[in-house]
């Protein structure tokens, strides 16, 4: 039986066109773009072609504003630490939100140990940051505001434009962690008016090991990696050319198919949410119901724990993700779910279901059927359910 992958946010397949381009590059483009001979020139050619595709995907004004990195995590570290270091003379205050990814939170925690001050604004029950809260948190010392675009656990999309209106006026830099959004929903860095934006190719059917950082022209930021002059001196280290070629093709496909992919995902999301509500009682659909990533459904199943659901679905060849503390190895429930108001028990029973262009309605229906049985089985075992039933 083939696997039904409904955990796209963790891993999604390389599209055939991406595979072909990468295989071709493996055979042909082993050159180093920094070399001044013909092998180097060829490598530079494919590198810049990929950069153009990324530039188009996020509607950057120029390919020079796109820097390739090793991952979304590196991009985020680069953006935040790079700004903190370059602007230490101006101030040490950074503003963020309570539902950011650990790549943001732990980077900020590191900076706090080095003397930075961080203000984290809360979100409402839908996971939305209030721009007014950001405005209130700004001080003379504030050098950076970092807020994510689409949330990777509940899907909510933040009002980035309204926030950058504030930061632009106050002359404060803005970084957007758009890892869960780029390639999934249209992202226009000029319209959003961000200074820095992080993304990763493995979120849109590209390879792992390739991330990118958009840096608006003129933004003062230090490199994270020092060394050679790659990426215009902004990110040293020989480029992961094979991966970047794959990322470029994946970006080109995502741009071209954006509308149909979004519509396909919306249809699946709608079907999944309706099915969940119909088949399974006592659930909570997390996140904003409209301003949200179309490829993600977060559902808290009351009275049972997420890892056991994941294991039972896996037995039926269906993969989904959970944010339960037991599964993640963390000792506490997800900070995102607690922030949107789930209690500890409900947070433990939360599944994150993500899908993509290859996902079919039949696969969603199969998940719904199996999940109904799994939930019933686990609830029969649950002391929490037993108490509610009396």
């Amino acid at each position, binding site marked *: 039986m083939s696997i039904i992958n409904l955990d796209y946010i963790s891993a999604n397949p390389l599209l055939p066109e991406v595979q072909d381009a990468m295989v071709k590059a493996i055979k042909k483009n082993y050159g180093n773009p920094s070399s001044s001979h013909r092998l180097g020139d060829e490598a530079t050619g494919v590198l810049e072609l990929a950069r153009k595709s990324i530039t188009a995907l996020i509607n950057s004004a120029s390919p020079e504003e796109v820097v390739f990195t090793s991952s979304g995590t590196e991009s985020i570290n680069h953006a935040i630490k790079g700004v903190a270091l370059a602007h230490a003379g101006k101030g040490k205050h950074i503003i963020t939100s309570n539902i950011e990814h650990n790549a943001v939170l*732990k980077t900020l925690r590191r900076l706090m140990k080095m003397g930075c001050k961080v203000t984290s604004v809360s979100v409402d029950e839908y996971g939305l940051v209030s721009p007014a809260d950001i405005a209130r948190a700004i001080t003379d010392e504030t050098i950076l505001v970092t807020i994510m675009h689409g949330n990777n656990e509940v899907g909510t999309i933040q009002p980035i434009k309204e926030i950058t209106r504030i930061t632009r006026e106050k002359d404060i830099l803005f970084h957007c962690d758009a890892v869960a959004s780029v390639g999934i929903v249209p992202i226009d860095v000029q319209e959003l008016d961000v200074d820095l934006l992080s993304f990763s190719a493995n979120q849109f059917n590209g390879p792992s090991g390739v991330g990118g950082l958009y840096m608006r022209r003129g933004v003062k930021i230090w490199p994270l990696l020092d060394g050679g002059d790659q990426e215009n001196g902004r990110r040293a280290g020989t480029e992961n050319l094979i991966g970047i070629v794959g990322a470029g093709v994946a970006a080109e496909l995502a741009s071209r198919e954006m509308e149909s992919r979004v519509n396909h995902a919306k249809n699946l999301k709608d079907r999944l949410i309706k099915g969940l509500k119909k088949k399974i009682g006592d659930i909570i659909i997390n996140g904003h119901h409209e301003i949200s990533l179309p490829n993600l459904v977060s559902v808290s199943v009351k009275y049972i724990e997420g890892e056991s659901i994941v294991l039972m679905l896996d037995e039926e060849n269906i993969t989904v993700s959970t944010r339960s503390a037991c599964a993640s190895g963390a*000792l506490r429930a997800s900070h995102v779910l607690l922030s949107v108001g789930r209690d500890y028990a409900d947070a*433990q029973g939360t599944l994150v279901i993500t899908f993509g262009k290859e996902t079919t309605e039949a696969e969603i229906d199969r998940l719904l059927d199996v999940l109904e049985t799994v939930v019933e089985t686990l609830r029969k075992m649950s002391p929490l359910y037993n108490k509610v039933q009396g």
Partner: protein
Amino acid sequence: MYSKVVMDHFKTPRNVGEMKDADGMGEVGNPVCGDMMNIYIKVEDDHIKDISFLTFGCGAAIAVSSMLTDIAKGKTIEEAKKITNKSVAEALEGLPKNKLHCSNLGADALQLAIKDYEDRKAGKVRPPARPEDRHEHTHGESCKCPYCNGDVNAGLEFCSHCGKEMNDSH
């Protein structure tokens, strides 16, 4: 990740269910920590005649409950008292490191059930569960940072006032 024995007990758990006429009941854990276990025992002629469980938790917690009830069934009370977390984990052919606490939970629940049985037999009245045992922080309640006493935002893993890392003991 899990051994075959663990997966077997997880997929087809033995002795599931509440026991309405139990002679002893032990309840451990709470949802804050991610798992909760109830063990029920029926005792006849000093033997555990019947035993069952209800568990909210991960695969390991369910497998531990199932294996534990299998081991304890038919044992005398004295024999059952000797069942430890180690013996349950061994019978399961090992548990991942971060799941060993699940086996502690199982052994504790059984010992509590036995104590409850003995207390009832001795005519002792059980004290009602203290509300403070149920450490269920819900949204809206704010905890204090143990380092600087500032209000801790539940969404953060670190104190936004002093930067100290938060852990479960707050």
